[in-house]
């Protein structure tokens, strides 16, 4: 770059001005985008932290006007729903990812790949309707199971594509080495290829997890929400995002405070997951994935 000054000397002031303006515009865009990010986190911490206390984390909601309620049942409910979702989404997602990378280098595989990307873009509220008609209509009532099915469906495409990417990073020579030793093909895939890519796949699963943890829309008419302790998967169940929504649009100050506290807990859960993912990614072989 030593010859740069001599080169720019020949450039007209107008072109140089445009160059500076473009840089300024790009910087301004970055600042404008970071502004709401900072604002949201500052407000979450500032308004949420005062309302997080022992009661909030251990009690169930109280009626309006009765102090001391909490969101413990919603935190439990979110855990139950996410467990059901993972039980559905993780095996199917990994399987589909294995299919795409090991058997899907053909037009059929391309079609599935495309379908997964399209499924990823289906609005979550539509997934909610489908879970409603698949589970709620058959069971005749709202349930944690229905919520788990909705979120599980949403996890599949993300995990599928993440698994495929990670498996493709495993060098062919590793597979050939195993096959050359007489190991069967499925054994190679399970014990060698998947094993090698494990850190990256876990990363993908956790990102999918973080993505659905805050989903509210598909739970509105599946999990439905509840004011009571429950871990029964066949009954309506509370969930953190649902509770935040109900409290946020209510007219009561006390509920607003609880909504901020709930939001802070939820964002800590999500950002914590992403932070762990980053840690795995920076230690393991899968650079640049998270």
């Amino acid at each position: 770059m030593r010859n740069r000054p001599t080169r720019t000397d020949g450039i007209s002031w107008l072109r140089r001005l445009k160059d500076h303006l473009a840089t300024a515009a790009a910087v301004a865009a970055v600042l404008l985008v970071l502004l709401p990010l900072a604002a949201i986190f500052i407000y979450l911490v500032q308004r949420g932290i005062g309302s997080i206390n022992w009661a909030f984390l251990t009690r169930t909601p109280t009626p309006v006007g009765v102090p001391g309620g909490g969101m413990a049942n919603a935190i439990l409910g979110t855990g139950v729903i996410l467990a059901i979702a993972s039980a559905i989404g993780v095996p199917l997602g990994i399987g589909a990812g294995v299919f795409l990378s090991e058997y899907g280098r053909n037009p059929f595989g391309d079609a599935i790949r495309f379908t997964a990307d399209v499924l990823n873009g289906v609005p979550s509220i539509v997934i909610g309707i489908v879970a409603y008609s698949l589970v709620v209509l058959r069971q005749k009532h709202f349930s944690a199971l229905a919520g788990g099915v909705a979120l599980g469906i949403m996890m599949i495409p993300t995990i599928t594509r993440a698994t495929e990417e990670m498996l493709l990073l495993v060098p062919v020579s590793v597979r050939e080495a195993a096959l050359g030793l007489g190991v069967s093909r499925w054994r190679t895939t399970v014990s060698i290829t998947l094993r090698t890519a494990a850190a990256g796949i876990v990363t993908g699963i956790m990102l999918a997890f973080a993505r659905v943890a805050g989903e509210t829309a598909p739970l509105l008419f599946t999990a439905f929400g509840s004011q009571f302790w429950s871990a029964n998967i066949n009954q309506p169940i509370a969930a953190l995002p649902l509770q935040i929504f109900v409290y946020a649009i209510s007219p009561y100050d006390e509920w607003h405070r609880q909504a901020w506290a709930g939001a802070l807990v939820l964002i800590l859960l999500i950002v914590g997951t992403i932070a762990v993912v980053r840690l795995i990614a920076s230690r393991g072989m899968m650079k640049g994935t998270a």
Partner: protein
Amino acid sequence: MLERVGSRLPDELFRYAMIACGLSVAVLLGLILYELIGNSSLSLHQFGWKFFTGRIWDPVNDVFGALPFIYGTILSSIVALVIAVPLGLGVAVFTTEMCPQRLRAALSFSTELLAAIPSVIYGLWAIFVLVPILRLYVEPGLMRYLGWTGLFQGPPYGIGLLAAGIVLAIMVVPIISSLTREVLSAVPRNQREAALALGATRWEMIRVGVLRNARAGILGAVILGLGRALGETMAVTMVIGNRPEIAKSLLAPGYTMASVLANEFTEATGNLYLSALVEIGLALFLVTIVVNALARLLVWSVTRGLPARVHAQ
């Protein structure tokens, strides 16, 4: 090839199991379509195409027209894109072409965080922070200086189409910027070097060497952002005002397809009412499928030939 009879069967079984998992993705998409059509058949037969042109939504008298929701969905998404596209492109250009290496990771982490914040938290923040700011400062200003356009009239409630559009814009920026970044980094290096060698300034190099080559992919990123904006539910429901009206002013309350589902689905009494709501879901599904497929094809047209990981989203 050695004959290994013993290991054939498990291999085949494993292959079929994996194919079944792959197929399940396609089956799911088919199942969604099947359920949506099945559960909306009542409304499909009753109203036909008039469902989408009817302006009246009156559950009490079983009259269902979805036009106000379609209007609100499209208008709030347009507002979102008008704000988000320049910002998203600016961020992408800055991170790929201008940013010092050290800042790059921090910036991509920030946009990742922005994408990870749940919709309901955006809504919460918008109700208590954004809407008051709009009501007290922004909307009176818009009315005074841009009131003549007709887009900014009526009482400044704070909540309404404008607020929904702004929240959507914040949510859509990370999608547009991260995909655009992928597309920009897929443009071959020699295009940039050629432009610089001809004496271009950095901006001219970006404009001629990078942006022009990435046009199709950028369009794809924008359309993908549109797809997200069309289907976004919670944050919009919390700030748009939820009134099924067709108002010209952006300050007026509106309603979107996704938010009518969120608000009325559990309360829908009567089969026709429920069926009409599912039909709105069906329409939303079909539109987002088309939009997403189009966007993917455009993005692929630029990034194809690179390793699969480039498509990550």
